[in-house]
């Protein structure tokens, strides 16, 4: 018999509280935090008596998951499990954000959680995830079809209306993502660039790091470091590190300490870790069996060691004649 726990949001977190009651079938507490079992997962497993699973190295089918623990900074992973209506605990204090923000609702999602926010729950528990569908953020698409014969003008009018409606909705979606995803990152990047340029760190970087980033052997070394199987899942989340390095390299290109023709190989040198943190989630989005996930994670990590440096060389060959 499994015990129920109550998980509340952390000090700056969002969502919840969730009451998790593992059952005979749903008895896995899955930690998808870049490898290993994190303390929150361990605590939940200890209190409930359910089985903690390292979701990064072991595949678990969705129907066995009681709750999944993630550490997503708000780009992708935080919406994937809520979209499938699986209880989700995010260790990072992130609210409704990312491309799947509309699925992140307080009845399946809680964030900013630490061990202190987990307690035993005594009381009546509904065992099942509430199945009520997420409120659709998008208005219903206009239904162009209708019964019976219609005049040519009516049909033309309706078809036009349908297309215009789609354009309008596209505009709304765009403004939505720009506000939720693009502008916040611009603010972050601008602050970073301001600090680099204004404080003199820029000169220091130019003197110490860019001599390496401005040569092919240097870029190869960077790509190999990013592709090391232990590091790559840690460097991956949200591509934040790749983006910061991209900005750093951009600043150095802008002030002339890295020649512009290295821009293309640099784009690949800083990115061999892309998506390495996301492999189990990405595979399960493609309905992969748990066995495939177990093989897939190491296979992709190994592959990156070969293809990471190779991609830099290919990009270098293709940068001939650029600038």
């Amino acid at each position, binding site marked *: 018999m499994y015990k129920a726990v109550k998980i509340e949001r952390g000090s700056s977190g969002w969502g919840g509280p969730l009451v998790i009651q593992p059952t005979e079938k749903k008895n896995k507490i899955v930690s998808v935090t870049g490898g290993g079992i994190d303390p929150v997962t361990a605590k939940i497993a200890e209190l409930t008596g359910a089985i903690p699973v390292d979701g990064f190295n072991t595949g678990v089918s969705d129907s066995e998951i009681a709750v999944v623990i993630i550490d997503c900074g708000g*780009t*992708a*992973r935080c919406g994937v499990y809520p979209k499938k209506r699986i209880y989700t605990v995010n260790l990072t204090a992130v609210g409704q954000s990312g*491309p799947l923000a509309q699925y992140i609702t307080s009845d399946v999602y809680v964030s900013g959680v630490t061990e202190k926010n987990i307690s035993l729950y005594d009381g009546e528990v509904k065992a099942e995830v509430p199945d009520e569908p997420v409120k659709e953020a998008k208005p219903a698409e206009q239904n162009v079809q209708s019964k019976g014969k219609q005049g040519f003008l009516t049909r033309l009018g309706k078809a036009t209306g349908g*297309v215009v409606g789609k354009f309008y909705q*596209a*505009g709304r*979606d*765009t403004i939505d*993502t720009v506000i939720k*995803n*693009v*502008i916040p*990152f*611009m603010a972050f990047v*601008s*602050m970073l*660039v*301001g600090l680099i*340029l*204004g404080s003199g760190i820029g000169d220091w970087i130019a003197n110490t790091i860019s001599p390496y980033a401005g040569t092919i052997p240097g870029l190869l070394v960077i790509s190999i470091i990013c592709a090391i199987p232990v590091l790559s899942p840690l460097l991956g989340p949200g*591509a934040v590190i*790749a*983006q910061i390095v*991209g*900005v750093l*390299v*951009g*600043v150095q*290109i*802008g*002030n002339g300490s890295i020649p*512009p023709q290295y*821009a293309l190989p*640099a*784009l690949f040198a800083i*990115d061999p870790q*892309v*998506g390495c943190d*996301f*492999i189990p*989630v*990405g*595979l399960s*989005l*493609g*309905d*992969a*069996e748990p066995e*495939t996930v177990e*093989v*897939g994670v*190491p*296979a*992709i990590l190994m*592959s990156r060691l070969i*293809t990471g440096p190779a991609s830099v060389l290919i990009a270098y060959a*293709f*940068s001939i004649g*650029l600038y």
Partner: protein
Amino acid sequence: MFDVLSNLAQGFIGLFQKGGENFMGLVTGILPTLIVLMTAVNALIKIIGEEKIEKVARSATKNIITRYTVFPVLAVFFLTNPMCYSFGKFLEEKYKPAFYDAAVSFVHPITGLFPHANSGELFVYMGIAQGLEQLNLPLGDIAIRYFIVGVIVIFMRGIVTERITAIMMGQRMGKSASRTQSASV
């Protein structure tokens, strides 16, 4: 005394003024085109509809070349990050890791030309592009090369990962086979 303080304050504010200038540059220089372009592509995706894309995408899964070029490119372009990985469902298990590897490796190279596909992670490309812009270099050339090299790289990644997956699945089968054998003996 006051001179020192006011110098400090000036330096402190200066840090953020630089950042503010940079932010203004991004908002006026990048956002307008980005918004219009994203609207156009989003509308195109809605008008074409997911079913038609799926049909075309499915036909690209059969041979090894289109499986790691056309198929992931369509997935990333039309479904965008992170839903593009759901196209893995059209593939056999042994190809799924390779497809994921190819698709996820394309979510940055695509942003130079089609930023709608991964609007949350634009600055891998844009960070570097900003530097080129400061030197008054045109961006069209690097955006298209980033895209083309991206396609070549994901093709290579797909093939390498497919091979490694096949070898590892083989080993696994061997192990579990020998285990059942020894169990039956």
